[in-house]
Each structure stands twice: as structure tokens, then as C-alpha cells.
């Protein structure tokens, strides 16, 4: 199972159509799920173990100049090294499968609308397989930690984010949130979801592209509109 899963994992990068064809019958994605969760947890553990914590607190608080001194003090009091580390690691462990479950639910509903009879469980695994490109970000995060001399902010950890690759907007800029969240791997995941939907449902390219783009268009489009209208 594992050698098969490893070859499928590699195939997702260079031959996604063939990978999804082989995954249609046996889509178990426990290996990529474990790699994504454990890899990210290890990187964040390393990050919080080595980061210059007083600097990180100052950096985070400086992004909120409008905050009152009392609120700032309360926030700084909450931001202890252990609190931040364990809440992040716990959050990763719990939230990652939940996010995949929600994406699986969406693809299951979208496929049902398109007339597919594939069950929810397979779409849950599908959501994990299309997220495999996020693994490429982990060695880059490790590079940032290793070369950052302890003064790397959480938003600069992801070297594949649009903010890092393009404008380098500061943390308190309105667009920094969406640009930090939108990553090169997001587009890759979007492309893989399109390919996967085509292979698994057999519906038209337009329908599959629409189904693939819709959740991202709603989330990031809505976010962008909110920024545009509030500033």
C-alpha cells in the first residue's frame, strides 16, 4: 500500500490525470494526510522553539496600531511561547482533517449536482490528494527558519504565498491577509481539483472548471470585495 501510495504521491505532480485514474478505485490518502499534518507540525514546532519570541510579540502587536494599551497588554500576556506553540500544534492536528472534511463535502455535493454517484468518503480522500502540493512549502519554511536568525514572522514563513512572491505588503496592510493566504500551491490545488473532477466525474471541462473554481472564487472573491469596499 505504502509503495503504491508513494508512487501515486509522486505521480500527482507530473501525471495528475493518471494519478486520479488510479485513485478512483482506491483513493486512501492516509499517507499524504500524515505527511501534511506531521510535516507542518514539525516545522511549526521548530519555528516556535527557535523564534525570538519578544520580537515576534512586538511584530504582531505593531500590526495593530489602533489597539488600546490595555488590549495590547492583554494580548501580549496571552502570547506566551508555550501558549502559541501548543495552540498552533493542537490547531493543526484538529483543524486540518476538519478542513479536508469540509472540502470533501463540497466536492461530494458538486459531484452529485453533476450526476456522479461517488460516495463522500472518496471525496474526503480526494480533498487530501489535491492538497499534496502544499508539501512543497515545508522545505521552504524550514529554509526560512534556518536562515532567519530567529526573526521570521509567521506570514514570512510561507515562501510560496503571493505576498512573499510579489508585493511584500506589511502585516498591517489591508491586502496582506488575502495575499498571505493565497499561495502558489492554492492554484496548483485548484488545477488538481479540476483534473480530478474531470477524471472522477467524466463531465465537461467547463462544468468541472466551474466546480473547481467556485469555492475559491467565493472565498477569495468575497475577501477581495470586502477589502475593496472597506478601504
Amino acid at each position, binding site marked *: 500500500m505504502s509503495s503504491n501510495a508513494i508512487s501515486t504521491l509522486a505521480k500527482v*505532480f*507530473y*501525471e495528475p490525470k493518471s494519478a486520479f485514474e488510479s485513485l478512483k478505485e482506491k483513493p486512501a490518502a492516509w499517507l499524504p494526510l500524515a505527511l501534511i499534518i506531521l510535516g507542518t507540525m514539525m516545522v511549526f514546532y521548530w519555528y516556535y522553539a527557535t523564534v525570538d519570541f519578544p520580537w515576534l510579540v512586538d511584530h504582531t502587536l*505593531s500590526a495593530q496600531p489602533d489597539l488600546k494599551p490595555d488590549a495590547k497588554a492583554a494580548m501580549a500576556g496571552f502570547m506566551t511561547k508555550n501558549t502559541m506553540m501548543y495552540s498552533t500544534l493542537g490547531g493543526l492536528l484538529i483543524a486540518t482533517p476538519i478542513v479536508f472534511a469540509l472540502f470533501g463535502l463540497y466536492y461530494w455535493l458538486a459531484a452529485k449536482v453533476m450526476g456522479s454517484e461517488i460516495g463522500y468518503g472518496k471525496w474526503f480522500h480526494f480533498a487530501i490528494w489535491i492538497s499534496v502540493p502544499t508539501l*512543497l512549502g515545508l522545505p*521552504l519554511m524550514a*529554509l*526560512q527558519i534556518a536562515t532567519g536568525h530567529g526573526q521570521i514572522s509567521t506570514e514570512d514563513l510561507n*515562501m510560496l504565498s503571493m505576498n512573499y*512572491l510579489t508585493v511584500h505588503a506589511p502585516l498591517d496592510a489591508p491586502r496582506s491577509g488575502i495575499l498571505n493566504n493565497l499561495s502558489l500551491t492554492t492554484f496548483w490545488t485548484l488545477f488538481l481539483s479540476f483534473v480530478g473532477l474531470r477524471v472522477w466525474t467524466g463531465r465537461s471541462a467547463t462544468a468541472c472548471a466551474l466546480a473547481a473554481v467556485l469555492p475559491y472564487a467565493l472565498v477569495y472573491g468575497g475577501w477581495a470585495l470586502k477589502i475593496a469596499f472597506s478601504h
Partner: protein
Amino acid sequence: MNKRKLIGIVVVAAVILVPVVIKFNSSKPKLEVELAAVSKKEIQPSILASGNFVFRQQVQLSSEVIGKVSEVLVKEGDKIQQGQVLLRLDPTLIKAEVTQQRAIVRSAQVNIERAQLNVDRQQVNSDRSRRLAEAKFIDTSKYEDALHQLNVAKVDLHAARESMQ
């Protein structure tokens, strides 16, 4: 198949290498500054800070004699003058010692008186022995014994006087 693999490897390599190139080619600002909009803010009327009191001059006081303190005449923070009495020692032990020393002195004076009387007596003895020896009533050795007793009495007197010093 091989061509697709090659494209995949190139894409993966590009995804990893592009941010690395951006990271090492971007010039960092040499001086980081923090900008803030001009606004009215409340200035805190008090500043909390911790510190230590230090003495400008510190003097270690010590008594010339050892004794129990019976009375402290100043409080912490009082201003004092040079020569002012700060505390009193219990005089009971010192008084007892003075009484003892006076008794020793009296005893020494009695010893001196006794030695003086002895010298006087030996002087009389010596003079009489000298006259008798000159008249050949006694041997010269008797006179020498009396003279020796006089010298011993003088030495005793001297020793008694020395013990008074």
C-alpha cells in the same frame, strides 16, 4: 511519459527555486523604522519604576568596650551631631571589675608597706651588726649576713612597688 516526468520535475524545481532566488536576491532595508500617524494620545501622569536607596556616607559604629546595650538614644532616620551619645552600655560588669581592681591596688599598697617595714628593720640590723663587727664582738660574716638580709628586703620592696604599676 518521460517528457511529462521531466515537466513535473521542472515545475516542482521552479516552485521551490523561485522563492529561494527571491529570498536571496531581495535587498533588505538597511534601517528599519516604524511610522505612526500623528494623533492625540493621553500621556501617563505617573511612571512606575523600581530602584534602591543608597547612602551617601555610611559609618560602621563600634564600642571601645564589650558590654550589653542598656539604652538606645536615637531612632532610624534621626539626624545626629558629632559627639552625640547614641547608646548606653550596662555598667554593672564594669563597676564590678573596677571594685576588684581597687581591692588589688589596696592589697599591693599593703605589700609595699610591709616590704618598707622589712627594709627599715633590716637597715637597723645591718647598722648594729656593722658596729659590733668593728668592735670585734661578732664575726665579719655575721655583719655580711645582716647586709644580705637588707639587700633582699630592698629587692622585695622594689618588686612590691613594680606590681603597682
